[in-house]
Every structure is written in structure tokens, then in C-alpha cells.
């Protein structure tokens, strides 16, 4: 479903990603781990279509199409969703109004009819129940005055309503206490199915106790230095990211 080939990315002239290859099939959960500054979030932003990130080489193919040619909104309409590390507030715009507009933009692209208020409300109720989200979250303006935990839960709620094909979670676990982490993880797990793929970007292994990945990739200094199954995450937990630099040189030599 998603194929990243030899991806090179620069931000303001600085090389951040230096040749990443990755293949993701439908229904798979891939976790990308790595220390700060290794390029994890950059990868997420590039997939979502952020302009400031300049792709200097490589390709990204999504469902047979050149993803890099698509605008951010087209990517979203084609089923790519990103849960932001730092969700942005939009004062005065209610969360439900925003989501309804988003859902209808996506449905329109797919040739589906717009949902009316009543259908949308029942969909929202269903997802709220699924994710154990309270009324107060959905009736407030988008992320405005939300606590860190509320923002992250709201991202998962957006994901549940928009039902993407590929969901990218950019450090959704950071800053969450254990209860909030469980809510987020349960949400993700309940949305896992054979068609939907996930890229779970995280700094720590602890989220992967709850969201068990099919593959784990370690990103270091803009390159994937190691790939494996979930046991790799545990290994990293024990050994830390130090020492990966040496491995990098071994890998590349």
C-alpha cells in the first residue's frame, strides 16, 4: 500500500532523512523508533505533505500513485491521516463542525453523499462510546484549551471518525499518563483491521506494550539502521539507542 524508496529530505538546507526505504502492506502496524532528531517526525510530516520539508531524492508510492505529487488535502481525502504530535487549536470552531466538514470533504472525493447532521451525530456517538470520550471534548472548539491528554485523545477521535486507510501516529504517546495512554492504545487497537495500516512513531517502547506492532524500524541519523519484529523494541528498551551509531557504520560498510 505504501512504498518509500530511497527517501532524502532536507529542512532549510539541513539533511534530515538520508535514504530511507520502507514497505507497508494493508493491515500492518509498523513502529518507527529512534532518538530525538533521528528524523521520525520529519518522515511523518513528509508523508502528510508539509511544504517546508524538501524531498531531494527518492519516491513515495501510495496505492500506486506518486504521493509527493499530491496536495496535503488530497492525501487526506485518499485516506492518509496523521495524529499530530502538537495538535493545533482553532478557536471558535466547534470540534464536531470541523469534523463534519472534514468527513464530508473526504466523502465528496470518494463520490459519496455528504452526511447529514443526524447521521453524523449518530456516527459521533458511536465513536465516542468506542473511545470513551466525553461530551465536553466534542462540543468545545477544536483543541482550544484542551489539556495535553485531551488533545491526543481528540486526535484518536478524529481518526476514528474519518476512518483512514493509513494512519500515522506522531509520538501520540508523549506526555500521556498511563491511563490516557491506555485510552489511546485501546482506540488504536479497536480500529485495527485487515485494510487499515498504521505507522506508530514513538520514542519509547511503552506504547508498544499496548499497541503491538508487526514490524519495528529503528531510525538513526536519518536512516533505518535496524528492522525487526516487536522484540526489537524490547531490545532497544534494554540497551538504549546508544551504540546504534556503531551499528550504522557496520551496516553501511
Amino acid at each position, binding site marked *: 500500500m505504501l512504498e518509500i524508496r530511497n527517501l532524502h529530505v532536507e529542512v532549510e538546507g539541513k539533511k534530515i532523512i538520508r535514504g530511507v526505504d520502507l514497505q507497508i502492506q494493508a493491515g500492518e502496524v509498523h513502529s518507527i523508533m529512534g532518538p530525538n532528531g533521528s528524523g521520525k517526525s520529519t518522515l511523518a510530516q513528509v508523508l*502528510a*505533505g*508539509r511544504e517546508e520539508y524538501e524531498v531531494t531524492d527518492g519516491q513515495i508510492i501510495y496505492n500506486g500513485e506518486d504521493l509527493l505529487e499530491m*496536495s*496535503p*488535502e488530497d*492525501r*487526506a*481525502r485518499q485516506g492518509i*491521516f*496523521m495524529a*499530530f504530535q502538537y*495538535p*493545533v*487549536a*482553532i*478557536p*471558535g*470552531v466547534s470540534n464536531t463542525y*470541523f*469534523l463534519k*466538514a*472534514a*468527513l464530508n*470533504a*473526504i466523502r465528496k*472525493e470518494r463520490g459519496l453523499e455528504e452526511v447529514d447532521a443526524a447521521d453524523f451525530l449518530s456516527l459521533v456517538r458511536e465513536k465516542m462510546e468506542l473511545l470513551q470520550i466525553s461530551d465536553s471534548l466534542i462540543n468545545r*472548539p477544536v483543541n482550544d484549551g484542551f489539556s495535553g491528554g485531551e488533545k491526543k485523545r481528540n486526535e484518536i477521535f*478524529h481518526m476514528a471518525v*474519518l476512518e483512514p486507510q493509513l494512519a500515522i501516529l506522531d509520538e501520540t504517546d508523549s506526555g500521556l499518563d498511563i491511563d490516557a495512554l491506555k485510552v489511546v492504545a485501546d482506540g488504536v487497537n479497536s480500529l485495527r483491521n485487515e485494510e487499515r495500516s498504521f505507522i506508530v512513531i514513538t520514542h519509547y517502547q511503552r506504547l508498544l506494550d499496548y499497541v503491538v506492532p508487526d514490524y519495528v524500524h529503528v531510525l538513526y541519523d536519518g536512516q533505518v539502521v535496524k528492522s525487526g519484529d516487536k522484540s526489537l523494541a524490547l531490545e532497544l528498551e534494554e540497551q538504549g539507542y546508544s551504540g546504534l551509531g556503531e551499528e550504522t557504520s557496520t551496516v553501511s560498510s
Partner: protein
Amino acid sequence: MPTETEKIQEITSEEYKYGFYTDIETDSAPPGLNEDIIRLISNKKNEPEFMLEWRLKAYSHWLTMTEPAWHNVHYPPIDYDSIVYYSAPKTQEDGPKSLDEVDPELLETYNKLGIPLQEQKMLTGVAVDAVFDSVSVATTYKAKLSELGIIFGSFSDAVQEHPDLIQKYLGTVVPYTDNYFAALNSAVFTDGSFCYIPEGVRCPMELSTYFRINAMNTGQFERTLIIADKGSYVSYLEGCTAPMRDENQLHAAVVELVAHDDAQIKYSTIQNWYPGDEEGKGGIYNFVTKRGKCEGVNSKISWTQVETGSAITWKYPSCVLLGDNSIGEFYSVALTKMRQQADTGTKMIHIGKNTRSNVVSKGISAGHGQNTYRGMIKVFKGASNARNYTQCDSMLMGDQCGAHTFPYIEIENSTTQMEHEASTSKIGEDQIFYCQQRGLSPEDAVSMIVNGFCKEVFKELPMEFAVEAQKLLEINLEGSVG
């Protein structure tokens, strides 16, 4: 064979006809202003003596004044001698014969706003059939209003039919000595609206929704007077979302509101005059004086405005809170783009006890637009327990525009409670990207973000007007980002 008498009659009537025609031809004053012009205006309008006297006093006062320069707007000097202060109302024969003759760009905007075809014709001056929906609707409502004792019509009609009310209230809120533009207006105004709501009557409809077409072409010096008698209520809508073109560059209107005991006036404006071209050429200069007097106890006046048009907007709808427990409110959205300049805000004058005022101002600047909030809160010595809350937010789009805030606070009573909050934000790339990532186009994202920003003001507008205002902002912001 016609008799001699018949012949004479025929000839005289012909001559009369001719003479009358000549009269119409000269029914336009030469440019410039002097006492004779004012006498002509008053005479043409068949005004009672007190009106002429008042106009002349206003004129001689105006002559002693100088044009203000304290505002944060810049424009070439206005040549008051080149303005034609009286010209006969235009007949429909001068206008385009059909919509085909109208600027297609203008029509496209009308269509985007969802303005009905008949109304489009009225707005562009196309002659319309005698049977016209809105007109008949207007007639029906007018009958209903007069049943309730509500007087609502043109200022000129009111001068003829209710001179006592005019004489009693005219200039009591905005005296002709008030400011340069108000003095000029007082001397030369040609028409406007008048409204009187009798004691205890709640006006059952938003006034002017159904009349807005009829209220057009009132000229560049417009005067409105609204009086809400004891315990009455009225919601008045001014303006129209349709962009209106006008040959007169200078507009200097005056609006006076009077609320007696327990009365409430809600005055909503959407201003969308021609802003000029990209370089700011040809846009309207809008110098308006709007003030309401909460004369009675427990009275309330609310101003809500959405200002998107004009090259220059200069207006400060204000409330004089004279009656004890009276309330003044001001809710404003001002959008400046291209080369537009707005200097707008309010004055809340607390005189009575326990008076309260609430000010919410949202300024949006795009392109080379300059947006200034200027607001004054004045609390007099006797106004114990006065309260004011002011919130003043600015949003910038791009880096060529400007937002400015000039709050003036004068408090003479120590029991006053006053809060002032101000913020300036830039419409964020982050916000737009977040919306895009959820599937919204950048245009939809901007309109959503801006509408969210203005929400506190829009919710004060009557429903129908609020929807139009949102659409209007969307259209005005097209192409402002990206």
C-alpha cells in the same frame, strides 16, 4: 373642430409641459456648498421652517470647523466644493436595460451570495416590473407595523408626517456641533430612515430585512433616527451584503438612536461599499457618526457591525449610558484587504449608576490592509458601580498588513470595574496545515479559521444576517492566502 378655448388649453398645457420638463433638467444644484444650496435642498424637500433653520445653523458651524486629522487613515484632501449636494433622484431609464448590461464580475458575486435575481436587478439599477415580490411583501408588512403603531419609513416622509417627533429628537444624540462630518451631514442630508416604536411594543420583525431594497439610493449624506419608547424593542438591520457601487466617493452618514425606560434597540450593520481597486483607487470614503442614547433606566442599545467594504472606514458607534442600569454593547468585525483602511471602534460613556458596557472587536487585515481599533471608555463621577469589559482581537494574514489598537480609558469613579483584553495573532500555517491534513482545502481552512475568530460577533447578528456575513467574509478572503 376644436373650439378656441380648447386650442388655448392645448397650447397652455403644452407650454406647461415644456416648462415642467425644463424644470427637471435644472433639478440639480451646481457643485459646492453655500446657504442657497441648503435653502434649495430644504425647499425641494418641502421642509418646515425649523428644519431649514437647523440646517443653516449646522452649516455655519461647519464653516468654523476643520477636518479631523487624529485618525490613522490617509487619503488625499477632499474637495468639498466639487461635490454636488443636491441632485434629483435618478430615474430608472438611466439605468441598464437588463442584467446583460451589468458588469459580469459583479453578477458573479451576487450569485455567490445567493441574491435573488429580482434583487440583483434592483441593486444594479435595472428597471423591474411593477409586480415585484419584495415590494408586495414590504407592503404587507408595512400594514402590520402600522397596526402596532410603529412608524417606519423614509426620513423625508417622517419630516412631512411627524414633524413633532423630528423636532423633538433630531440632533439630540448627535448634535450638529459634534464633529466635522456630522455637521456637514446635518446641513445637507437628503434622506435616510426614521423609526418610532411606541410604548410597550415589541417590533415583530427585523426592520429593513424586507425593506432594504427600498432604502437604497438615499444619497451620500444619509440620516437615520430610531426612537424606542418605554418598554419597546426593535431590531434594525442596515445595509446589504451585496457590493454596491456608488459614484459618490464621500459618504458621511449620521445615525441617532434613543432608548427610553426599559427599551431595547439592536442595530446591526453590514457594510460592503466598493473598496476601490487593487491600488485603492475609486473606493468609498465612509465617515459615519453613529451614536445611541440610553436615556431611560434599564434601557439597552447594542451595535453589531460587519465592515468589509469602503476604501476608508471611519466610524465609532457609541452609547451614552445616561439611565441607571442601562447597558451598551458593541460587537464588531472589520476586514481590510488590498489598500483598505479602517479606523473603527466605539465610545461607551457611563453617566448613570450601575451602567454596563461590553465591547468585542475583531479586526482582520490582509493584503496591504490597515486596521485600527479605537475605543473609549469614559466613566463619569456619578456613575457608581459601572462595569466595562473590552475584548479586542486582531488577526493578520500575510506580512504587508497592519493592526493597531488605541484604547482610551477615562475613569472618574473609583467603584468602576473595568477589564480590557487584547490579542494579535497571525493566521497560522500550522492551523491551515492541520485543516488540510483533515481533508479541507486551504480556502475552506482560512474561511473556517476566520469565521471561528469572528464567532462571538456573528452570534450577535440576526440568524439570516449572520449567514450572509459569513459568506461575505469567505468571498472577500478568496485568494488572500496561498
